[in-house]
């Protein structure tokens, strides 16, 4: 329907169908829809047309907004947890397989890649049949983990656009999962976000027999991992601070704000400049 208004093929008073047309319909160009609707008999007059339009738009937008939100952060949480589970299980089974297959076949190796070569074999004995079948399971799990990661990569930017842009989709999803949802992540202080995923170390510290952890999963962020150890605490603090703000913007406004990324880039440039200053100092 490239030339029809939303009301085409729709009975007056049928708000559900009208809302669906508003959501799914398209047209190449606008037209004088109110006049057309009256001419086609959809509405007796313009006032009735606008009343029907209001109902359809409110129903369509409310329904779509609710759906999008429901589909949002919890789906991401499940997906990233499932991804980690698949990966961990695949690696565990791959270890078991390499012990078994190493005894059965000439070649040996380790990990998911080795499982892929075993899975391609034609088994000739009942023993080999079991080992090859196990290898196939490992490959399936690793493939599923990859598919889940691809899903997380497309999903995270719609759920948390700023957080995903700044942290990368997978780390964004991990933070949301560790907090239990975008809303609870948005309500956490930045110091908590900094050590999310380092709970063991944090509680060891709180019990009094360890130093406080500098970072949790945000360690995987290039700005933390790629900074020299002496400045990693500062880097972790800066990254956590901006990621927390990004999560709050994502939860409360949902609008993309590229200036947040730039602020973190600037702060990190300042922190990394210290290393350069020190090097220059050493040379003197």
């Amino acid at each position: 329907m490239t030339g029809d208004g939303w009301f085409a093929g729709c009975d007056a008073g049928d708000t559900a169908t009208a809302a669906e047309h508003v959501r799914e319909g398209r047209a190449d160009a606008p037209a004088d829809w109110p006049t057309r609707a009256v001419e086609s008999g959809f509405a007796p007059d313009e006032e009735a047309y606008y009343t029907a339009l209001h109902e359809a738009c409110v129903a369509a937008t409310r329904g779509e907004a609710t759906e999008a939100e429901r589909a949002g952060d919890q789906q991401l949480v499940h997906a990233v947890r499932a991804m980690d589970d698949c990966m961990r299980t695949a690696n565990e089974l791959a270890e078991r397989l390499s012990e078994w297959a190493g005894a059965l076949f000439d070649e040996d190796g380790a990990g998911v890649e080795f499982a892929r070569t075993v899975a391609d074999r034609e088994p000739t004995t009942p023993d080999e049949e079991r080992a090859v079948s196990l290898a196939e399971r490992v490959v399936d799990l690793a493939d599923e983990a990859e598919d889940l990661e691809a899903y997380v990569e497309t999903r995270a930017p719609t759920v948390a656009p700023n957080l995903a842009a700044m942290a990368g989709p997978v780390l964004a999803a991990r933070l949301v999962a560790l907090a239990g949802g975008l809303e609870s992540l948005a309500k956490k202080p930045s110091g908590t976000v900094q050590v999310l995923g380092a709970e063991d170390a944090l509680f060891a510290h709180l019990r009094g027999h360890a130093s406080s952890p500098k970072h949790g999963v945000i360690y995987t962020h290039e700005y933390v991992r790629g900074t020299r150890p002496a400045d990693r605490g500062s880097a972790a603090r800066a990254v956590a601070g901006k990621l927390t703000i990004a999560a709050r913007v994502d939860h409360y406004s949902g609008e993309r704000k590229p200036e947040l990324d730039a602020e973190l880039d600037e702060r990190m440039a300042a922190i990394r400049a210290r290393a350069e200053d020190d090097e220059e100092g050493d040379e003197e």
Partner: protein
Amino acid sequence: MTATPLADGGDSHLPDGVEPRTFDGDQRLATRGEPVYGEPVQDGWRAWDPGRSKLGAMLGRGVETGFAGGDTVLYLGAASGTTVSHVADFAGPTYAVEFAPRPARDLVRAAESRPNLFPLLKDARKPETYAHVVESGVDVLFQDVATRGQGEVACRNRQFLADDGWLVATIKARSEDVTGPTEVTFGHVVDTIETEYEVVTTERMDPLHEDHLAVVARPR
């Protein structure tokens, strides 16, 4: 390019339905309608916060926007409905396009008590996804979208505007280019707008809205 400050009492540029009213001793613009975001209300008039609304700030500064009152409006980038709720208070049929689901929920709430406000969860960069709903020949195309390519958005949505209509756009420099000099960024966006429109006024929105430029234009 001239802007008559509100303090001078010049309010001929104000559309019908927008009036300066006194709230707690302060003169502020206001419209009649149900409150939306916790703004002060007196005798049915809602104060229009210029710090939260770029259009409110423009009207407060005396910018001629082309809004007359009772107009048909296409509003792109309605967000949670703060500004568009005021627009719907004084305008006629008001189509409010917003891309993000979360603010759209608040927008729907603002629309519930306003029969002339039509919320649409659509992408302003893709007019073909709402051309079957939004009528042609609207009087004012208002645009406040925080996306790259704000000039293109104005051009692509030109098709909805009446030939004697008005484009009122607020351009956010930081959405186009995060680090570049704002003047250069504004120049690029205005150049793009000028392919389809004749620019009447441009005005910086500082200090209320930093790094924003208001553009008022007529279709060519």
